[in-house]
């Protein structure tokens, strides 16, 4: 079935521009399309009319890279659960519906243009501690040479499935990045390779998170619901434990 939709899209020329919601109509949208394909249709229309297309982030379009974003009709990555915007099907919408499309909103994730926000704050948090030390002198040990308890490996993998999209921040009423940071802290904390920097990692990443101006977590749990990768609040609890344990013995 094909649909006609009214879109209310955030347009903003650049970081300095004030920006506003602009209304567009799209017609003949197939319910098999993904949300981004629907935006492609809109952009094609705009280009044909010699208007500036709507800028939005995307890359893999299969839910693995974390580039796509968008706050769609009041929810991060739209109304579906466990999917990114690129995986969101148009069959989640109805013919004649009005759809609000906005960028992630947070002081720490400022808009660059239209629907694109600057997520480098998340990268700076990762730089502050999201790494491990590896011997690269030519006789690097195979990671699989160290045996790891299956349940720990599974949890590390669960945490590592965070794609850094920022939906957790966008949906949180406090713009807190705790779910993201918790995933990044946890993925290494389960593994033997992550032990060397374990204490500094959590302290430095939390400090960087606070410096970037993200809010404080109040455990509303919205992030867990909206996260396309199903990252669990368990990891936030784990990060809190890690942090407490590290801070209490820290000499700094």
């Amino acid at each position, binding site marked *: 079935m094909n649909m006609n939709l009214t879109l*209310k899209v*955030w347009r903003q020329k650049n970081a300095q521009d004030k920006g506003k*919601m602009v209304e567009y109509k799209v017609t003949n949208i197939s319910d098999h399309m993904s949300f981004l394909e629907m935006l492609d249709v809109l952009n094609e229309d705009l280009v044909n009319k010699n208007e500036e297309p709507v800028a939005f982030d995307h890359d893999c379009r299969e839910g693995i890279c974390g580039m796509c974003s968008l*706050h769609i*009709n*009041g*929810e991060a990555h739209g*109304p579906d659960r466990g999917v990114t915007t690129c995986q969101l099907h148009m069959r989640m919408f109805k013919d004649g519906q009005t759809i*609000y499309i*906005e960028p992630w*909103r*947070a*002081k*720490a994730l400022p808009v660059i243009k239209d629907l694109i926000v600057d997520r480098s704050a998340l990268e700076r948090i990762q730089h502050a501690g999201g790494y491990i030390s590896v011997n690269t002198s030519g006789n690097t040990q195979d990671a699989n040479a160290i045996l790891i308890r299956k349940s720990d490996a599974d949890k590390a993998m669960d945490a590592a499935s965070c794609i850094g999209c920022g939906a957790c921040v966008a*949906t949180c*009423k*406090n*713009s*807190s990045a*705790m779910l993201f940071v918790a995933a990044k802290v946890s993925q290494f904390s389960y593994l033997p390779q992550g032990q060397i920097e374990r204490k500094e990692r959590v*302290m430095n990443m*939390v*400090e960087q*998170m*606070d410096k970037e*101006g*993200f*809010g*404080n*977590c*109040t*455990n*509303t*749990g*919205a992030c867990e*619901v*909206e996260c396309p990768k199903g990252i669990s*609040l*368990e990891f*936030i*609890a*784990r*990060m*809190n*434990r890690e*942090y*407490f344990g590290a*801070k209490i013995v*820290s000499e*700094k």
Partner: protein
Amino acid sequence: MSQGFSKSSVGRKILMALSGFFLLLFLFQHFLINSLSVISADAFNEVSFFMGTNPLIQYLIQPILLFGIIFHLIMGITLELKNKSTRPIPYAMNKPSENASWMSRNMVITGIMVLLFLGLHFYDFWIPEIKTKFIEGNMSGLNESGELRFHEELLHKFTDPIRVGLYILSFVFLSLHLLHGFQSAFQSVGFNHRKYTPIIKKLGNLYAIFIPLGFILIALFHFHVKIRF
């Protein structure tokens, strides 16, 4: 210099939870003592006298309690103000109820309602206590006719229907606050476990509903008794 524990978002969250735990314990013992007032006026008087005059409770526990309340309050408001400032441009369309409960999103509102009640409660009970004990210097706990005065004072406050109404309303807000707060405190101190967290959530709901309900029933009991006799 690295970031101080009490300056960090995670540290503050843990402190918020610890003060919350302390207040949960306090509320529970307060409930137990209030329950006595229904069972036996004498027992209630005895325990109130003990609580009101025991030096350990008066000079150690009471200041800690006051500190706990003030800390929880100031920290809660500080965090809320900071959180509010993190999203200068709001969403034109937002559906917060799709992913989080009303209670979890409105802790500041329910908290402030409880605070207003505490103001009234202090005015009703705590300030007169301090006045009798420390300004008038009467540590005996006795009224003019030489009996312990606490039960009678309690009954006196529950004669006014408006007070009882406010009292009930406040405990509804407290219940809403605890429905999120109880389990949230466990999460904040890092206690989240696949097996035990569901039990904690159930326990939290029981606590959040039945303790405030208990306070309400005790108030209604005395109000009712007053009307009949």
